[in-house]
């Protein structure tokens, strides 16, 4: 049973992958992991490369299915939802930021941010208005019509942050958002992300190698031996 302020709950979640794409002995990534995330709370997950951090994030967001256990998002068990409902849930209640910003190359910054709003059902005008506000908030008011190849790495990540927030999600899933940035830009992005999630009361699940960044979150977990440990 989820607590009233819980947005995300993982119960006894396990996941394994075959050794190669074509099969083989399975590699166990997660074993009976429990995790809960309350609204307006930020959680950082650290661990060494290959420990399964990204896998845990993907399962939490319904991007990957688990072998066993439950993933409950806002009182809905994700495994019971069909593709359409899951898509809508992702669209309206979740935001994503990845290490490479994954902007749509054929669209400019403004369009990249307005598209998720349109997918969620906003009219083009309303979506554009929201996108404009967010891009101003992240400091890219003068880069609205620039495509991704015309933006720097830091600017692309800021656009990604604005895109993740456009539908006022309940949770933002950020997988190494500063992983490919230099120190200065990484700091900028960290500050922006944490300030915005706090301001908008959005929960945050963050995957990062950066212990300093992780320490700025409300809770820090360390993924070790296929399970989560509270980071001392």
């Amino acid at each position, binding site marked *: 049973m989820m607590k009233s302020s819980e947005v995300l709950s993982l119960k006894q979640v396990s996941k394994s992958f075959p050794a190669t*794409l074509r099969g083989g002995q399975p590699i166990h990534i997660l074993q009976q992991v429990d995790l809960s995330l309350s609204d307006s709370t930020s959680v950082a997950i650290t661990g060494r490369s290959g420990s399964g951090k990204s896998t845990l994030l*993907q399962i939490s*967001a319904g*991007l*990957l299915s688990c072998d066993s256990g439950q993933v409950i998002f*806002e009182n*809905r068990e994700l495994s019971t*939802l069909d*593709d*359409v*409902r899951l*898509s*809508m*849930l*992702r*669209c*309206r*209640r*979740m935001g*994503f930021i*990845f290490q*490479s910003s*994954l902007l*749509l*190359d*054929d*669209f400019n910054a403004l*369009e990249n941010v307005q*598209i*998720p709003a*349109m*997918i*969620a*059902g*906003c*009219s*083009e005008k309303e979506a554009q208005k929201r996108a404009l506000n967010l891009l101003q908030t992240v400091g890219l008011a003068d880069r609205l019509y620039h495509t991704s190849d015309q933006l720097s790495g830091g600017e692309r990540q800021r656009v990604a942050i604005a*895109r993740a927030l456009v*539908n*006022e999600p*309940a949770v933002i899933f950020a997988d190494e958002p500063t992983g490919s940035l230099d120190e200065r830009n990484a700091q900028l992005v960290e500050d922006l992300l944490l300030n915005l999630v706090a301001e908008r009361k959005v929960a945050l699940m963050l995957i990062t190698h950066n212990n300093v960044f992780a320490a700025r979150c409300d809770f820090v977990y360390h993924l070790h031996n296929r399970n989560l440990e509270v980071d001392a």
Partner: protein
Amino acid sequence: MPLMESVSSPSPIIDMQVLLLLCTRYAFSKQNRHRGTSIRITIGLGLCLFAIIAVLSFMQALQRDQFDDIRTFESFDLQVVLSTSDEAAARHAADEIEALASVDNAFIYADIPVITQATAGDTVAGRIRGLEAEGRFLSQLNSYRGELFVPGFLASSYSNSRTHALKDEVKVTLLKKGRQATVIPSQKNMVIGSLYYTSSYDFDRATFLCDIETLLSLNPDVQLKIGIFTRNDVLEVKRHILDLGYEEVATYKELNASLYGAMELEQKMMTLMLFLMVLVILVHIRSSSRRLLLAKQREIAMLRSMGLTKKQVQSLFVLQSLLVTLIGCVAGLVFSYSAVALYPMLSNVVYQSMGVHLILEIRTHEVVVLVVTILVFSMLASFQGTHRILKADIMEMFAHDEVI
């Protein structure tokens, strides 16, 4: 946005708006040099469609030219076979038919197979056609020498004039009903009173002309027919004639069903052969859609994580190829209609090389069928090229460069 109690889809209109926005951009995406490919496909399709329409129009014009001769001189637009040899009854029938709306002319005629023998002994095997020449037949019949349709005289064609010259007396041999035998041969001398020519070589070689009274004097028992020229739809006129109670009514197409069928078959064969070109392009549509999808895997994964469903992503790729195909088809139609509009400037060249004046037309229903077929095939090609890849899990797309 408030917390949703239930997850429901946005309106289909907004869905379509998003898809259209995405597909228009993807159709000519610079990534993976897809734009160049799309432009080449567009131009290729345009040229293929133009080639098909141009060749078909040309073939139809040639066939129409051939059928024009048949309609004008041979079997007319419609033919009614009467069960009488009585001229008065036939005339009454002709008048009744001519009174119908859309009928320009209705006239009595009949043919009898004959062998004619000139003084020098040269024979021509053909027929004598006796008729009350009217309408298109009369207007397109060219008088070369003498006066046509003078009672008691025959008109020979210019093609036969070497052996059957003007003022020659020829022996005409035909078959008539006998008292005891079914048919008996009959012979009569007649004078060639005039020479004519038409645009139909086959008609000229085998036909002598005279007025109906002269023909009936040769063979009073010949079965009379009514030849009809119409200005509107031939089938509609046929229906009206059948309503009048006449039973044996046939259009020029029905009378020349085999020839007409053969011409239609030729056109279809030619279309099929030319469609090979379209198939080559359709294969490229398939592979270009697939390559675009492979290049955009990560973007698609992002779009999926933003809330686009699998069906929507599939529709996106089908729509982008449909857009490219549609532009190609429109280009092809523009080329075709422009060419037909400009053709009159070249018609003299065609006349000099082929000896015929052709009028090019584009049949709308054929064009519609062609365009719809191409669009449907391109959708199928694009679907076939992408649906397997889209079955993959979202995160596989993130993880692997190429999902196969």
